[in-house]
């Protein structure tokens, strides 16, 4: 079998890893802490641009361009997303459910408009290019494979750390706050602070996803932070897979991205007039799939497990 055929699955794997980080981050916020963050794209963007600005070569038209090592960029992306999330969380977490969603969408849109318009900061609509890629100097196939391994090790580490965290007392407490805030508060838990922790932790992981993204693409323009492709797609992945369950989050991610990407392999073989329509049929199918899951498996394909009873930790 021709080995280059593996390149496409490898590419799919990298994209799934990228979205997996986003869904894992969102799962902390929504699945474990019950925070309806609809501004995923905002934190993704902060991470992406932070890492890009630190590692790309300088450009007279904008700030920074420090050519720092990629690892520094990734770390900074995570920290920066957390730093941005802190004041946002401080201000918005007092809103309940839907209000929080609308407020965070608004903030993410403001971040997007700033990145589009402030050339000196972000390169404006032209974005930032020439971003280095780890193992980018290897031949194409090897570079892709190396990035796949790198991104999945990141996902693995984060997954492991999160699983540990949700089994720990912290995780139990988060779920207690989510399920019965008054009772948790009555037991002396600092509800506000724990919520903020979850929000910041989730945002930091989303920032890391952004960094993973820019170094894979080696370029970033504001179109990459389209709320449809980032925020809403990630939500669909999480709800479909099963919120409150990290494995569900991973499953939902893989499933939706496969449907999104691989369905085209089939529809692209249709005659042209149908091929164009098929793109929208796919959009319809994603919407319909969501309805079907919500109807028959409203808790997602892998529902939340009961961690606390009879488990160690």
């Amino acid at each position, binding site marked *: *079998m*021709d080995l*280059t*055929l593996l*390149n*496409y699955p490898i*590419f799919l794997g990298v*994209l799934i890893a990228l979205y997996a980080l986003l869904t894992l981050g969102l799962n902390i916020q929504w699945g474990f802490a019950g925070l309806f963050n609809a501004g995923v794209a905002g934190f993704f963007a902060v991470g992406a641009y932070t890492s890009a600005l630190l590692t790309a070569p300088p450009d007279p038209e904008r700030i920074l361009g420090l050519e720092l090592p990629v690892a520094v960029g990734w770390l900074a992306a995570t920290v920066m997303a957390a730093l941005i999330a802190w004041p946002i969380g401080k201000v918005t977490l007092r809103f309940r459910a839907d209000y929080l969603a609308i407020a965070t969408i608004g903030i993410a849109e403001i971040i997007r*408009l700033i990145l*589009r*318009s402030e050339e000196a900061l972000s390169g*404006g*609509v*032209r*974005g930032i*290019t*020439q971003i280095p*890629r780890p193992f*980018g100097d290897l*031949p*194409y196939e090897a*570079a*892709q494979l190396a990035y796949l391994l790198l991104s999945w090790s990141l996902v693995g580490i984060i997954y492991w750390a999160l699983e540990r965290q949700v089994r720990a007392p912290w995780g139990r407490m988060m779920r207690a706050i989510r399920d019965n805030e008054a009772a948790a508060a009555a037991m002396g838990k600092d509800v506000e602070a724990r919520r903020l922790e979850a929000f910041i932790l989730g945002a930091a992981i989303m920032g890391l996803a952004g960094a993973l993204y820019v170094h*894979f*693409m*080696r*370029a*970033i*323009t*504001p*179109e*990459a932070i*389209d709320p449809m*492709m980032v925020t809403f797609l990630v939500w669909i992945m999480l709800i479909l897979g099963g919120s409150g369950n990290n494995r569900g989050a991973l499953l939902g991610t893989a499933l939706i991205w496969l449907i999104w*990407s691989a369905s*085209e*392999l089939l529809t*692209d*073989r249709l005659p*042209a007039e149908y*091929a*164009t329509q098929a*793109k*929208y049929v796919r959009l319809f199918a994603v919407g319909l799939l969501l309805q079907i899951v919500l109807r028959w498996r409203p808790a997602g394909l892998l529902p939340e497990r009961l961690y606390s009873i009879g488990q160690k930790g």
Partner: protein
Amino acid sequence: MKPRKRSLLLALAVAGFFTATPYARAQEARVALLSGITGPIAGMAPAMIASMKLALDQANAAGGLSYGKLLYQEFDDGCNPQIATDAMTKAVNVFKATAAVGPGCSGALLAAANSVSIPAGLLLISSSATSPKITTLDDKNLVYRTVPSDDYQGKVLARALLARGFKKVAVAYINNDYGKGLADAFKAEFEAKGGTITQFRGHEDKKPSYRADLAELAKGGADTLVLFDYANSSGLTILKQAIENNFFKNYVGADGMRDENLIKTLGADNLKTFLVSAPVGEAGEAYNRFAEAARKAGIDPNATFAATSYDAAFLVALALEAAKGDKSKLPQALRAVATAPGEPILPGEWDKAKKLLAAGKEIDYKGASGDLEFDAAGDVPGSFALFGVAGNTFKELQKMN
């Protein structure tokens, strides 16, 4: 059906899918056509794709490549980096493209080229990505475009307007790489050559009203609005609201505004003082040949980026013929067939080109959208003309340089 039987069938289907995936043989060449079929430029994509196909179909109808047929498949880049990278990966690894036309948008191109096509050694020609950032891309000689960088068009339009006596204008642009790129280049040249820009404002698309924006733009007392936008987006809304409310006397647009649909929608009588710049072929003969073929195929030859798309695809075909199927020789071959010296080849002259190449002669393609002499960065200077509205179509008023 028993589970085991079902999974066996599934495995067979998957295996069948991969083995059914055709391999690139030396008897054919595969061209991936990437365009923003969905997303913000979806309105322009059908004409672009149809023009690309027209070029390849013409070549196939005239006997195809000397070593086989030109196969093509269209891919949706969504005008979005994630979707474009995905599409390009499929184009390279599943479709096994030998060369690509597209992607359509600069952001999509930068991501897809950087992360997929350049590392994979795939040649691509875009017909609509206009960002100056593409000029500076470290592309290992693999990225070309038939559409001039915004820098060129903005500058020639500024000079042409000054020569026609427009000394004081207001500028509005859609805030994306197309609008912003043109507006910046226009502003620099217009002001350097002694013109005055009273207002310089960007805007986002899809807002219900631009009247306050227009009132702001009118404030400096300019009677001319230069609008860098698309005729199937906020450009239409703004132009309509400006004309309805009499904000300016004259309106000027760039190629994104040259759309016959605009005349149909707003009425030719209301567009008497509307000028647009757009790329044109040197002699006009090349364009006429393309226009005739396009009309026959049901394509509006004046549709935005139709001519550049046709040229991009035709050039890819010529380069594939000249390189004799050797992927590594494609960049060299592309430059050879596109640039002087050589026997001039006009759109559709596939047979003639093929014979000349077979005889070991040099050829020089003269495209529908211009001469297409690539510079070192793979850009074309382009030749532009200024158009006015006459009847239900655009009429060339003067060449610009």
